[in-house]
Each structure stands twice: as structure tokens, then as C-alpha cells.
């Protein structure tokens, strides 16, 4: 339909892809983008369309690129259940409370579920430790770094 050779189309598409992914990856500003494509010698109208294309798709491209980064299994959700062990083959008449959990993790598009258990004392310890972890982001040290990195 365009009356152009296959090779040209391929190069054109590759060029566009490279332009958009590199710009999105580096998150360059509008001004920098315009300066970069200036050197290509296109018309003003074409430059404007390219800029708009960049701005419209930047967020989505960045989120796709984000998926390519090295990743550890990530948290998905947690189910829990309270159990009380009453007896076992080796000991009768017990009262042993426990919390049984199913931890759902995402790893590279697969979801895994792991069954874990803990006792009441350890549960409280876990909560205390993780609350401390959450509190760290609010500390001055972290706040300062976040501010200065932007």
C-alpha cells in the first residue's frame, strides 16, 4: 500500500522502536526529545507527531520495560488459618495453637503457593519486625535520600 520496499519498512519500524524505547527508558524531557530528533532533519509537523507519540506511550513502554528487569519472587497475597492441635500419635491431650498460612508469590508469571506455619509467639515477633521495616521509610534518613534522588 505504501509502495516502499520491505527492507525500508523494517528499518523504519526498528528505528521508531529504538527511538521510543530509548527515550522512555531514559525518561527524557520534551525539550531533550525534540533536540534529539532535530538532527534527523524531518519536518516540523513530523517532529510534533513523534513527540506526541512519545508522550502518549511513554508510561506503557516503561511499565513493559519494568517487567524485563531481574526480579525475585514477589508478594501476591496471604491466607491464614488458626489451628489448635489436640493430639498426635506420640502425645495425647494437647492444646497447641498454631497459625497456618498460605503465602502466594509471583515468579516470572507463575504463581506459587507455599504452606507455612508458626506459633503465636513467633507471629507477634514477625509483626513487630515488619512494622519496624515499614516505619523505616518514614524516618528522616530515608526521606532525605528520596528527596535528593529525584
Amino acid at each position, binding site marked *: 500500500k505504501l509502495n516502499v520496499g520491505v527492507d525500508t519498512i523494517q528499518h523504519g519500524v526498528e528505528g521508531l522502536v529504538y527511538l521510543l524505547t530509548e527515550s522512555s*527508558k*531514559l*525518561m527524557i524531557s520534551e525539550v531533550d526529545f525534540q533536540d534529539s530528533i532535530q538532527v534527523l532533519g524531518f519536518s516540523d509537523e513530523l517532529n510534533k507527531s513523534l513527540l506526541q507519540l512519545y508522550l502518549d506511550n511513554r508510561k506503557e513502554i*516503561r511499565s513493559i*520495560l*519494568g517487567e*524485563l*528487569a*531481574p*526480579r*525475585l*519472587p*514477589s*508478594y501476591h*497475597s*496471604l491466607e*491464614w488459618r*488458626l489451628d489448635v492441635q489436640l493430639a*498426635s*500419635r*506420640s*502425645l*495425647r*491431650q*494437647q492444646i*497447641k*495453637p*498454631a*497459625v*497456618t*498460612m498460605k*503465602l502466594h*508469590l509471583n515468579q516470572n508469571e507463575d504463581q506459587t503457593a*507455599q*504452606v*507455612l*506455619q*508458626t*506459633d*503465636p509467639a*513467633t*507471629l*507477634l*515477633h*514477625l*509483626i513487630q*519486625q*515488619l*512494622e519496624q*521495616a*515499614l516505619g*523505616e*521509610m518514614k524516618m528522616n534518613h*530515608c526521606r532525605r*535520600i*528520596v528527596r535528593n*534522588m*529525584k
Partner: protein
Amino acid sequence: MELSPYAQGGWRLLGDPRRFPRRPFAALLRAAFRSLLDHPQAGNSFILDDPDLKDIDPTVLKHCHAAAATCILEAGKQKADISAISTCLEDCKLDKERIEQFCTEYQKNKDALEILLGSIGRSPLHITDVSWRLEYQIKNNQLHKTYQPSYLVTLNVENSDSGSHPDVSFSCTMEQLQDLVGKLKDAAKSLERATQM
């Protein structure tokens, strides 16, 4: 509380003052409890090598040790009280003094025995501890200027069979960690309410 015929036979031997005078009887009781409750240690001499037991025939010794151990474990498993144990040993023709000796020794070791028996058995991986790491991501080779805090949480877990197990690690955002902590707190609150019922 019932013992097998083999165990009862062993106790009848233990009850016989000609086969088992006072000192060897006490020594065997001690040995039986130690062999069940002490942690196996490398280089520990065999527990039945007590000098008070050297005059006893080895076959008899083995039979009686098995009988004593069986009785200890059965009593522990059933959480038997003194009267049940006494009745059982009376049936094996043990005199009052020897029954009392056993019961005294049993009372001393009852709690340790209960802990030992309670720890035997299968259960899911048990969480023993948690460690966490907070990082601030700046860039990676696919994406620059990511600027996001991220947590790496590691749960230390133990296997009831083999003791150790590779830890469970995962990353999460602040919101996800809040979700996790919220759910754990719900579980803790439920536990508290259940204990008050």
C-alpha cells in the same frame, strides 16, 4: 494404661530383688530416663555402662531397659497419672517401694518427656524468624530513573523432619508489605479473641 506382654515380662524381672537388687534397680531407672531424654552426643559412653549394672546378665538388662522405656513412653503419651502407673506396675508384681521410686523419677522428668513427645510429628514448614531489607531502586539496565522503594523479606523456616530448609524470600512494595502486616495482625487478633473464650 497397658503394657505389652514383653514389657510386662521385663518389669517382672525388674521387680525381682534377686535379679535386681536395690542399687541396680535405681541405676536402670536412671539409665532408662537418660537414654530417652538426653540429647545424643558424640563420644558419649553407652548409658547402660553404669558400674552398678555390671553384674546383671546383658540379655536381662536389655529386656528390662526396653520394659522401662516402654512404660515411660506409654505413660507420657497418655499423660497417665500416678494411680494409673501404680496399677500397671502392681500387675507386674512390683513392690510398693519400687513403684514409688519409679513414680518419683517419672514426676521429675514428666515435663521434659511431654516436650519431647509433643515435638515428634509432621507439620508444615515452621517459620522461626524474619529478616528484611529496604532498598531504593534507582535504575536497571532496562529502565532508568525508576525511583521506587522496595522491601526484600526473608522468612527463616524449619522442617520438622530435617531441621533446616532453604529460606523463603520475596520482594514487595510498601503497599504489599502493609497488606501482609495487616493480615498478620488480623490473625493475631483472632488468636487473642480465641484465647479469651
